[in-house]
């Protein structure tokens, strides 16, 4: 038995804190709960960030008899998820002040559980662990979407996402079952060595099922149907959290599963991933063009971004890990900032997600309008913002792998995307609107400011992110050899 439980301190700490919050929730009166719970969650997350940083090993280490494997790729992804959680808490505090819910306590500890699920996903080294952690994350998010009283759109979205998401999960589970049937094990190394020595058509079916499930979770075409409704219907802070952290968790889990384990069939699934990626990149960009609702628009744009990341996955393994991690890093902060600003601008009777409400934004709050330029230009990939570098790394990876035509298609998708990313800026700066401003909450303002500031500073000095991607790649490779 090799439990190696000391490696698991950050996760245990989060579980403990979440349980503590559940207990607190039972005994505390509901008044003032939002402030207290958000502060506790914020503090807990900060401690978890420190713990993850302290317990991140460069040489990969296993725990729970190899069910969990930690390396720097997983540690850095966990940090990304925790940062998302931190900023989500900041945005949520204001949101709950504006739109009260009877389930304040539930909201915050479910958020922690969702983050925990994501954190386990990126370090899973065994199929069942991966599945369970995926479900922990997904189920927490279904709950989060439906927690606001009187918000029927949110409940509808939660139900839709729940039904379709369960099908996605079932497909993954079935794929895992097939793989287990062939290889007789659920541990990555054993599945891997068994596939290496004896690769059959059945294994390919298993891989195809798992891949479909993953494509569903990242919202790639043709499994994207739930995305716009879920993104649109969910309360904005939940959309923010889901948009950023699910992408990180699922993509990193995909890298850690597909590259070491399914490498013998890389030729086959690589092609498929590339095609799904290109189609998603183009489809998302085209579909977003027609949207008048920013959350729907960002949902389609997220399909497009997922497509771009998928094309990067389809390059050579080393390039893929490097550029995918870089992209996820940038995408996390772009998503937080974009949904953060929508949540910030939303008050009763004024929906920040409607483009028409963006009219004359510069007139009432110039600084927010300038931040929105940073955010949407970063999403569009205009230099020198972080989003540009993400796109650039994917481009370099694709061309190094000899895929010039896909590179051109990715760039075309980014050209089409420009057509809608410019819309909010046009409304904010070039159209006149009402003069009186919307009261903005301090904490979500801070979240938007921090994430846009990161987009600028790391855009000017991308070396930091680049180094982070490099060490996570190095650590990942060390673990798979």
């Amino acid at each position: 038995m090799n439990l190696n439980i000391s490696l698991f301190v950050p996760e245990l700490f989060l579980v403990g804190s979440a349980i503590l919050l559940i207990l607190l929730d039972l005994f505390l009166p509901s008044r003032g709960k939002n402030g207290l719970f958000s502060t506790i969650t914020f503090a807990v997350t900060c401690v978890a960030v420190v713990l993850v940083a302290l317990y991140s090993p460069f040489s990969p280490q296993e725990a729970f008899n190899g069910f969990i494997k930690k390396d720097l790729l997983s540690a850095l992804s966990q940090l990304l998820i925790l940062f998302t959680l931190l900023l989500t808490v900041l945005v949520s505090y204001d949101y709950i002040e504006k739109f009260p819910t009877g389930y304040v306590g539930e909201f915050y500890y479910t958020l922690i559980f969702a983050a925990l699920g994501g954190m386990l996903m990126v370090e899973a080294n065994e199929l069942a662990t991966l599945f369970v952690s995926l479900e922990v994350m997904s189920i927490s998010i279904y709950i989060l979407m439906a927690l606001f009283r009187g918000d029927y759109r949110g409940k509808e979205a939660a139900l839709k996402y729940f039904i379709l998401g369960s099908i996605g999960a079932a497909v993954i589970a079935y794929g895992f079952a097939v793989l287990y049937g062939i290889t007789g094990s659920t541990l990555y190394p054993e599945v891997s060595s068994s596939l290496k020595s004896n690769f059959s058509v059945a294994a390919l079916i298993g891989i195809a099922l798992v891949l479909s499930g993953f494509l569903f979770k990242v919202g790639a075409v043709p499994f994207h149907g739930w995305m716009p409704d879920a993104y649109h219907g969910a309360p904005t802070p939940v959309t923010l959290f889901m948009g950023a952290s699910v992408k990180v968790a699922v993509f990193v889990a995909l890298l850690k599963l597909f590259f070491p384990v399914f490498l013998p069939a890389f030729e086959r699934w690589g092609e498929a991933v590339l095609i799904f990626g290109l189609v998603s990149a183009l489809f998302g960009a085209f579909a977003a063009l027609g949207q008048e609702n920013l959350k729907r628009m960002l949902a389609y744009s997220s399909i497009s971004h997922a497509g771009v990341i998928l094309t990067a996955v389809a390059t050579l393994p080393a390039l893929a890990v490097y550029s995918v991690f870089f992209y996820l890093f940038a995408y996390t902060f772009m998503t937080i900032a974009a949904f953060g600003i929508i949540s910030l601008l939303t008050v009763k009777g004024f929906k920040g997600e409607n483009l028409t409400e963006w009219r004359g934004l510069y007139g009432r709050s110039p600084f927010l309008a300038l931040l929105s330029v940073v955010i949407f230009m970063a999403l569009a990939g205009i230099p020198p913002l972080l989003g540009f570098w993400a796109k650039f790394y994917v481009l370099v990876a694709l061309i190094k792998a000899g895929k010039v035509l896909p590179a051109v298609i990715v760039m075309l998708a980014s050209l089409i995307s420009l057509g809608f990313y410019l819309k909010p800026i046009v409304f904010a700066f070039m159209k006149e609107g009402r003069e009186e401003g919307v009261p903005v909450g301090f904490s979500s303002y801070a979240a938007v400011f921090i994430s846009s500031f990161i987009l600028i500073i790391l855009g000017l000095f991308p070396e930091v992110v680049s180094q982070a991607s490099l060490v996570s790649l190095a650590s990942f490779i060390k673990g798979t050899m």
Partner: protein
Amino acid sequence: MVSLMLVLPLFGALLIALCRSEERAKWIALVTTGLVLVLAVLLLFQFDPSKSSSFQFIDYGHWLPSLSIKYKVGVDGLSLVMVLMTALLTFIAVPSAWNYIGRRKKLFYALLLLLETAMLGVFVSLDLLLFYIFWEAMLVPMSLIIGIWGGERRIYSALKFFIYTFAGSIFLLVGMVVLVVFYTSLTGNFTFDLQHLLSVKLPLELQKWLFWAFFIAFAVKVPVFPFHTWLPDAHVEAPTPGSVILAGVLLKMGTYGFLRFSLPLFPEAYRMYAPIIFVLGVIAVIYTALVALVQKDLKKVIAYSSVSHMGFVMIGLFSLTVQGIEGAIFQMLSHGLVSGALFFLVGVIYERLHTREISKMGGLAALAPKLATLGMLFTMANVGLPGTSSFVGEFLTILGGYKASHLTAYLMALGVIFGAAYMLYTYRNVFFLEPKVLSFEDLDRRELLSLGLLAILVVWWGFNPEFIMKFLHVYTHELLGGV
């Protein structure tokens, strides 16, 4: 020193953001652009013309070591002239905006300064990726300037400008990465450094592909016929300072790109495709001159005239002769000054009459003699009258064209005649004929000073082109020697 020029406008923009008063913004902008101009002139005097083919004042630092992307800037003869022009025209753009920009002044001048950094950056970058970043970064402030302070169809024009240029540059980025990856496969050294990349000779097949990838990006900017349709929209809708910068500086980025990248990197493809460029250039010269002849909007006349004049530059560049290339560079500078001044004049008239319809003007010469005099001077300069800087540029490009292909030169000369036709025709309709307005205020001191400065330079460099040309001789010889 070059880095200082890049940082100064950023600093000015920051200062404007921090200062509370809307009125003080323009003074900060004036001082900042003035300082940049002083630096540019200092650079001119410290530059060693006998070594104009090599880069001087190089500033160098690692920026993104993991992909070995460098911050590397410096100037050679070509860059020097472009930097001077950029600094000069941005400095002129501030007084041209003085009264024209009535609202959101802080934002305007801050954007103008950001734009200046990006434009200067394009002309001094020695790293391909750095160049691309400045090239793209420039789109945001320029589109905002068109879209916020422009005319009626400003939003359409701003988006068209942004998307059109971005569409061109996606091929540039892909082309650059393909080039660098190929270079890496040869030398094992992954770098975007232009001077390193120049050291390998690319196979012809790759040159052809890359030439067209780069061509699209640069051709949209120049603009080469048939990629010019964004230009009349952008120019007409842009506010005066926007038009001054667009015509004066932005168009030259395209031709600069051809000289800096296409010619040295893909010499064989460049030579091979020169005839196609001649055809496109001649079409631009003649067709757009004819289009300019029938315009009713004063700004459109000058916008189309810009496309026509850039046709001369393109033919000069692709003639691959010393005269053609030197003439083209000189014409770039000269056209910057002249078109900048003409857009300034249109702005002056628009501020007073609130119209750009030529048919609503007339007889302004009697009401505003100073305006009419300067207008005459710049009209003649745009026609290419000997004694003005445009003559030098146009004559040399025609000479270069003649050496490459006689027919091209004849057709270019025909374009000069059409040019004279539309300019003189327009001048007559605006300044002579029956007066259609009752009162018209003549130029004030601010306008007189800025236009006077441009007028002096146009005449001075018309009579003494060697002042600029001396920075280009060694550069051009080396450039052609390497081809």
